[in-house]
C-alpha cells in the first residue's frame, strides 16, 4: 500500500517535471521565433554576403547546355562595376533598377509597335467603306499620314507636346524634357506648350525620351488618320498633305501638352481643386476627339460627295466596296487597341503599372458591348444587322473606353461601351439628317462623338481604385467621378470638352480654311465622278476590275455607313 503511494507520488513528480520542461521549451521556441522575425524585419545585406555568390560554371553549361532553363540568367549575369572588387550590393540594386526600367521600355515599345500596326487597320476599314474607284487614293492617304505626321511631329510636334512633361518615373526620369512654357494669369500658372525636344536634338538625345517619342508619335498618327476617313472620295491629295502636317505639328501637340504634358488642363486639380485635373488615360479626348473634330472641320469645308444628298436634302447611303476589308480592319484595330490603352501605363513594373490587366479587360469589354448594342440598334430599327455599323459600334466602344480604361471597373466599362454603340448609330443619323455633313466612314461619329463621351465618362464612372504611384496629375489618391463622390472631376472633364470644341475645333477649322484658300481642298467634280485613283494618284487600285464611273445606291438596307435612305 505504502509502496503504491510512493509510486504514485513519484509519477506525479515526473509529470510536473515534464510539464515544466514543456513550458520552458515552448517559451524558448517562442522567443526564438520572435527573434527570427525581428532579425528578418531588420534584414541587412552586406557586400560580404553577396561577394561569394557564384553561378554555375560556364564550362558546365557549355558542355551540357541548359535545356531546362535552370542556369541561364543567374548571379554571373549581374553587371559588376568593379571586377577587382567583385559583386556588391550596389551592383545588385542597380541591376534591379535597370530591370524595372527595361521591363517598362520593352512594354511601352511593344505597345507602341502595336499602335503603329493600327494604321493598316484604319486603312482597311476606310478603304473598304469607300467605292473601289477611290481605293488607291484612300489607301495612300492612310499610308502617307505615317510619314508626313511623323516628320511634323519629329520637327516640332513632340517638343510642343512633351517638352515640359517633367519626370516620368516609369521610363527612368525623362529629365531632359523639363521646358514647359508657363504664363501666370489670375495668380495661377498656365502651362501652354513644351520647349525641349525639337528634332530630338541636344539633351533630348536620351534613351527614355526616344521611348516616349515613339509611343507618342504613333498616337499622333492615329489622330491624323481619322481625318482621312471623313474626307475620303473628294479630298485633293496635296491639300491632305498640308493639312496633315499642320495637325501633326501644332494642333494635336498643343492639346496633347495641355492634357498629358503638364499643361494647364492637367493642372486644374492642383490649381483649382477640380478633382485630379483633366484626366484622359489613353486619349479619348487627346487622340480621338481631336481627330474627330478636325474631321468635322474638314468635312464641312469640303462639302458632301456628289450624289450624297438629293435636291430636297434627303441623304443617300453610298455603300462601300469591300466588307471583308472593313471587318478584317476592325479586328486589326481591336488588336492594336491592346497596345493603345494598356500601353498608356508607360510600364509594366512599378507605380501601379500592374493595372495593365484591368485596362486590357476594360478595353475588351467596352468594344464588345458597343458592337452588340450597335448591332441590336440597327437590327431593331432597320430590320437587318448592319455589318458596317457593327464595326463602327466596336470602334466607338474602344474609342469611348480609351480615356476611362485606367480609372473604371469592368462593369462601368461594359456600360460605357454599350452607350457608345447607341451613340454612334444616333450620331451617324444626326450628321446625315440635321447638319447634312457627309462622312463616308462615320469618323466624326466614332471618334468625335465617342471621344467626347469617353472624356465625360471618366468624370462619371472613375471609381478611385486606380493608384498610379499614389497620385495623378499631382493630386494624391485615386481618380473618382461623380458616381463615386467627386463631382469636381466631372467639371474638369467638361472643361476638357469645352476646350476641345472651343479651341481645338477653332484651330483645325482656321488651319484647314487657310489650306482651302491657298491650296484648294476639294478636287474637281469631273475627277470625283471618275474616281480619284487616276486623276489624283495616276494609278488604279484594281486595274483588272471594271469600275463604274459613278454609283450611288439608295436601297432599304445597305452596308454603307449612313442610315438607309428609305427611312428618310
Amino acid at each position, binding site marked *: 500500500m505504502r509502496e503504491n503511494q510512493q509510486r504514485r507520488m513519484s509519477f506525479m513528480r515526473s509529470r510536473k517535471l515534464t510539464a515544466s520542461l514543456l513550458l520552458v521549451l515552448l517559451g524558448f521556441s517562442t522567443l526564438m521565433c520572435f527573434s527570427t522575425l525581428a532579425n528578418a524585419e531588420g534584414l541587412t545585406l552586406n557586400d560580404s554576403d553577396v561577394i561569394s555568390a557564384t553561378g554555375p560554371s560556364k564550362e558546365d553549361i557549355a558542355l551540357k547546355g541548359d535545356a531546362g532553363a535552370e542556369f541561364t540568367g543567374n548571379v554571373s549575369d549581374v553587371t559588376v562595376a568593379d571586377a577587382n572588387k567583385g559583386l556588391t550590393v550596389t551592383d545588385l540594386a542597380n541591376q534591379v533598377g535597370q530591370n524595372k526600367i527595361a521591363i517598362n521600355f520593352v512594354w511601352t515599345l511593344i505597345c507602341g509597335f502595336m499602335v503603329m500596326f493600327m494604321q493598316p487597320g484604319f486603312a482597311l476599314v476606310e478603304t473598304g467603306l469607300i467605292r473601289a474607284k477611290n481605293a488607291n487614293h484612300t489607301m495612300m492617304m492612310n499610308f502617307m499620314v505615317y510619314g508626313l505626321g511623323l516628320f511634323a511631329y519629329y520637327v516640332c510636334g513632340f517638343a510642343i507636346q512633351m517638352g515640359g512633361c517633367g519626370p516620368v518615373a516609369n521610363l527612368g526620369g525623362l529629365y531632359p524634357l523639363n521646358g514647359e512654357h508657363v504664363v501666370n494669369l489670375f495668380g495661377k500658372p498656365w502651362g501652354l506648350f513644351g520647349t525641349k525636344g525639337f528634332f530630338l536634338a541636344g539633351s533630348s538625345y536620351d534613351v527614355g525620351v526616344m521611348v516616349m517619342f515613339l509611343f507618342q508619335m504613333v498616337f499622333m498618327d492615329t489622330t491624323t488618320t481619322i481625318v482621312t476617313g471623313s474626307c475620303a472620295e473628294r479630298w485633293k491629295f496635296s491639300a491632305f498633305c498640308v493639312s496633315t502636317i499642320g495637325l501633326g505639328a501644332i494642333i494635336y501637340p498643343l492639346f496633347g501638352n495641355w492634357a498629358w504634358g503638364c499643361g494647364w488642363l492637367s493642372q486644374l486639380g492642383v490649381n483649382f481643386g477640380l478633382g485630379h485635373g483633366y484626366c484622359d488615360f489613353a486619349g479619348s479626348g487627346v487622340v480621338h476627339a481631336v481627330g474627330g473634330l478636325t474631321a468635322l472641320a474638314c468635312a*464641312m469645308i469640303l462639302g458632301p460627295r456628289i450624289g450624297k444628298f438629293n435636291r430636297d436634302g434627303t441623304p443617300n447611303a453610298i455603300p462601300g466596296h469591300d466588307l471583308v476589308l472593313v471587318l478584317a480592319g476592325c479586328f486589326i484595330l481591336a488588336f492594336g487597341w491592346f497596345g493603345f490603352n494598356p500601353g498608356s501605363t508607360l510600364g509594366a513594373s512599378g507605380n501601379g503599372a500592374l493595372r495593365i490587366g484591368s485596362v486590357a479587360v476594360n478595353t475588351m469589354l467596352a468594344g464588345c458591348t458597343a458592337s452588340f448594342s450597335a448591332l441590336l440598334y440597327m437590327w431593331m430599327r432597320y430590320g437587318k444587322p448592319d455589318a458596317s455599323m457593327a464595326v463602327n459600334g466596336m470602334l466607338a466602344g474602344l474609342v469611348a473606353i480609351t480615356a476611362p480604361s485606367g480609372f473604371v471597373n469592368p462593369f462601368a466599362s461594359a456600360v460605357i461601351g454599350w452607350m457608345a454603340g447607341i451613340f454612334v448609330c444616333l450620331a451617324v443619323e444626326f450628321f446625315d439628317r440635321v447638319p447634312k455633313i457627309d462622312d463616308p466612314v462615320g469618323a466624326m461619329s466614332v471618334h468625335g462623338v465617342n471621344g467626347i463621351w469617353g472624356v465625360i465618362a471618366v468624370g462619371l464612372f472613375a471609381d478611385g481604385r486606380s493608384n498610379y504611384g499614389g497620385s495623378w496629375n499631382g493630386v494624391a489618391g485615386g481618380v473618382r467621378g461623380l458616381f463615386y463622390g467627386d463631382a469636381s472631376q466631372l467639371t474638369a472633364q467638361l472643361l476638357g470638352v469645352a476646350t476641345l470644341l472651343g479651341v481645338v475645333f477653332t484651330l483645325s477649322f482656321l488651319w484647314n480654311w487657310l489650306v482651302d484658300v491657298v491650296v484648294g481642298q476639294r478636287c474637281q467634280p469631273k475627277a470625283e465622278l471618275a474616281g480619284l485613283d487616276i486623276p489624283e494618284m495616276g494609278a488604279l487600285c484594281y486595274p483588272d476590275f471594271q469600275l463604274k464611273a459613278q454609283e450611288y445606291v439608295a436601297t432599304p438596307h445597305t452596308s454603307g455607313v449612313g442610315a438607309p435612305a428609305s427611312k428618310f
Partner: protein
Amino acid sequence: MRLIGVLIVLAGWAIAMAGLFLTDSNSVRILFCLGGISVSLFGIFGVINQYYLARANWKK
C-alpha cells in the same frame, strides 16, 4: 459669317472657363461648362455649317 461662327465657338470656351473665376461652387461651374459647350456647338452647327450648307453642291 464663318469668322462670326469662329468667334461664337471661342466664346463658348470662354464661358466655360469663366466659371473657374466667377464662382467656387462646383454645380455652378458645371452649368457654366454646359452653357459654354452649347454655345460652341451652336457656333459650329448653327453658324459655320449653315454658311457651307447654303452653298452645298446638292442645292445647285
